[in-house]
């Protein structure tokens, strides 16, 4: 059978390593969330908030998310092309080089070697490792697609290819820097230019690392999980080309009211609002694919993860454009609202979809049925609860903080000093820290369930549909 030529061992390895990096991201996240309420938990020089926060974001985005996308992409590309991987050996190299890069990133960030640029903190030698890693990955995916045995490329492959080329452009342009020593460099761009390039990168890392890859996963794993095809091919085309064309204009919405030229800010604002259309094209496509299938929300735990995931994508792509409007940005930017927004995206949308994909993959990589569906449900409710408490508490905190920052007394002076506003944040920060603990409990159950599947799950029968395409 042709599926025996599919490389699933590599998928399994990437799943395991990405979960490990995900746990690191959460543990560091919880530590820094407690540091915000108790400065005594900073242990300088290595373990301070300033050095740990980049480790939290990098482990989450590049360890957990990218690691899982490597796993799911390598799985999907073989099935969607009906061809084995172009080079399983290259994929093996990719796995170990990926881990080496993440470890090098964590160690150098801890030592304080960083460029200061958000989501691009890694210094130039690690940048080079990232580029090598990405080229290796790109070659394998593109060659597998070129040698495919299925004429039409399914929408998930479009999103994969856009991810590959988009990330390459973003990363290379933003990495332009002049080295001073092995672990220190200065940006090739200065001041306002540097800011504009960085946020063109930063926001499109959200587009091409945290939007197009989970969409590739969603468009594949939703029909696989429900057994019914995606509602509309045409809506998919609108979603895809809308996203890849419009996203790149929006970076400066991170820089509203700054010295970046006004027209760049206005374009960013306009395109951010326009992006609601292609984003919601995928949300509707997901919902309409469920018509006549909504009972599966009750019966099929995978569908629950996926539909909640796309729902958070929908909420995220409404809240994002709202924040990108000048007046609202003037109020809410720089407050605690923003991490609330970001975490709805990464915990709600990206991670829920990835959990579904990994649960779907479990029988296919272990050859065993999932150990416990009730535990998967418990995992779902814990991570959902943790994430909602996290985001909602910070949205309320952000509105209060913004209100206090902007409040002016009748005599024209500020109503509150900065410290008076900071002190008001402490209760919210306590709540946020504990929401992280709830989320971690969900992850612990997820890992336990997978470990028990590998060891004790009921073996999947050889002719079972599960091992097929």
């Amino acid at each position, binding site marked *: 059978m042709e599926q025996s030529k599919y490389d699933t061992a590599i998928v399994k390895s990437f799943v395991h390593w990405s979960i490990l990096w995900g746990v690191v991201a959460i543990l560091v996240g919880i530590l820094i969330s407690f540091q915000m*309420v108790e400065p005594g938990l900073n242990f300088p020089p290595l373990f301070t908030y300033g050095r740990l926060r980049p480790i939290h974001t990098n482990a989450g985005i590049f360890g957990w998310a990218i690691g899982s996308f490597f796993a799911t992409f390598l799985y999907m590309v073989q099935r969607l092309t009906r061809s084995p991987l172009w080079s399983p050996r290259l994929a093996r190299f990719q796995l170990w080089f990926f881990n080496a890069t993440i470890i090098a990133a964590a160690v150098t960030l801890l030592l304080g070697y960083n460029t200061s640029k958000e989501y691009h903190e890694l210094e130039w030698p690690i940048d080079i490792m990232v580029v090598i890693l990405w080229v290796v990955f790109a070659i394998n995916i593109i060659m597998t697609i070129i040698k495919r045995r299925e004429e*039409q490329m399914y929408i998930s492959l479009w999103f994969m290819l856009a991810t590959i080329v988009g990330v390459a452009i973003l990363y290379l342009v933003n990495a332009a820097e002049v080295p001073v020593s092995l672990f220190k460099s200065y940006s090739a761009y*200065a001041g306002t230019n540097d800011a504009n390039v960085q946020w063109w990168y930063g926001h499109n890392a959200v587009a091409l690392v945290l939007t197009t890859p989970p969409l590739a996963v969603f468009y594949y794993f939703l029909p696989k999980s429900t057994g019914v095809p995606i509602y509309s091919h045409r809506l998919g085309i609108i979603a895809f080309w809308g996203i890849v064309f419009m996203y790149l204009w929006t970076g400066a919405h991170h820089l509203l009211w700054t010295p970046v030229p006004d027209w760049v800010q206005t374009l960013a604002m306009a395109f951010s609002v326009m992006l609601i259309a292609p984003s919601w094209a995928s949300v509707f496509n997901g919902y309409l694919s469920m018509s006549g299938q909504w009972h599966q929300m009750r019966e099929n735990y995978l569908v629950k993860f996926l539909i909640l995931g796309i729902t958070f994508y929908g909420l995220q792509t409404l809240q994002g454009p709202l924040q990108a409007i000048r007046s609202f940005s003037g109020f809410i930017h720089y407050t605690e609202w923003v991490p609330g927004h970001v975490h709805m995206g990464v915990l709600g949308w990206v991670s829920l979809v990835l959990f579904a994909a990994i649960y779907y993959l479990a029988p296919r990589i272990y050859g065993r049925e999932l150990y416990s569906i009730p535990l998967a449900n418990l995992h779902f409710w814990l991570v959902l609860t943790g994430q909602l408490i996290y985001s909602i508490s910070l949205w309320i905190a952000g509105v209060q903080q913004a209100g206090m920052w*902007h409040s002016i007394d009748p005599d024209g002076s500020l109503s509150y*000093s900065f410290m008076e506003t900071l002190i008001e944040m402490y209760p919210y920060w306590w709540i946020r820290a504990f929401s992280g603990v709830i989320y971690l409990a969900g992850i612990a159950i997820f890992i336990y369930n997978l470990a028990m599947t590998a060891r004790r799950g009921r073996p999947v029968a050889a002719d079972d549909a599960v091992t097929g395409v």
Partner: protein
Amino acid sequence: MIFWEKKPVVFLLMATGAILVGTIITMVLPFAWVNTEADRIESVKPYAPLELAGRDVYIREGCNNCHTQTVRPLVAEVLRYGDYSKSGEFRYDRPFLWGSRRVGPDLARIGGKYPDAWHFQHMENPQSMVPRSNMPAYAFLKKNAVDPDYTRRKMEVLDFPYSESRIRDLAGQTEMDAVVAYLQKLGSDIPWREASRAAIVGELQNPYQDDSSIIPQGEALYAEHCAACHGKDLAGGIGPDIHDVDMPDSDLYEILYNGITDGGMPAFSRLGPDRVWKVVNYLKYQKRH
């Protein structure tokens, strides 16, 4: 099925094209306006060696994760931090350090706000100056020496002017000295403090002249804004002993409101006239005789 759905190479080229349109218009084109003659500010100067070393400490410690460095042209923001930021002020910033979140306050205009002694003590033990602050302590910076040769190399890479004597001066300086020098440079290249100084016209009349009921409010304001430098009991510290301030209310008001630029006394105009008068009142009642 549309043609590009079965042609991966054509598809890749189309996707690249779609990505490049917005990229070129919003990311490449602005280079024609920014850091040109159009936004140049003559008084903005590159970093001195010690300031640059300090800036790199700021980057290494990830200060930008909690502090921004751009003041937006919004009323409350200009009141709180000072004049709004201009493009030309950042011409020598590689990388830019505008940040994205204010766990702590914006630092774009911190230069010249407090005396050096305030910063040293605050960096070493933030809670000793700002009791409920959540900032980590950076006392260890006092133990790290600045490397003159490495700093010279950095100045050369950035093409900043420097003299050998300034490099030699670095010997014996610590990273704490460097980071404080950097903070004192921030935002002070343009004379915004002088420009924003409120001219006080006419006779100043203390609205709380004989109102002792206002003292507790003045005391609370003193504890929050003044005690870190002048001591809880007014006995002094970073700032002088102010038990026996002997001057007319209007003069004291003016000092609190506009500060003493050369003496390290910050301006408290952001508190507004009402609160400044309450502090004046409190101070007058503390006179021992």
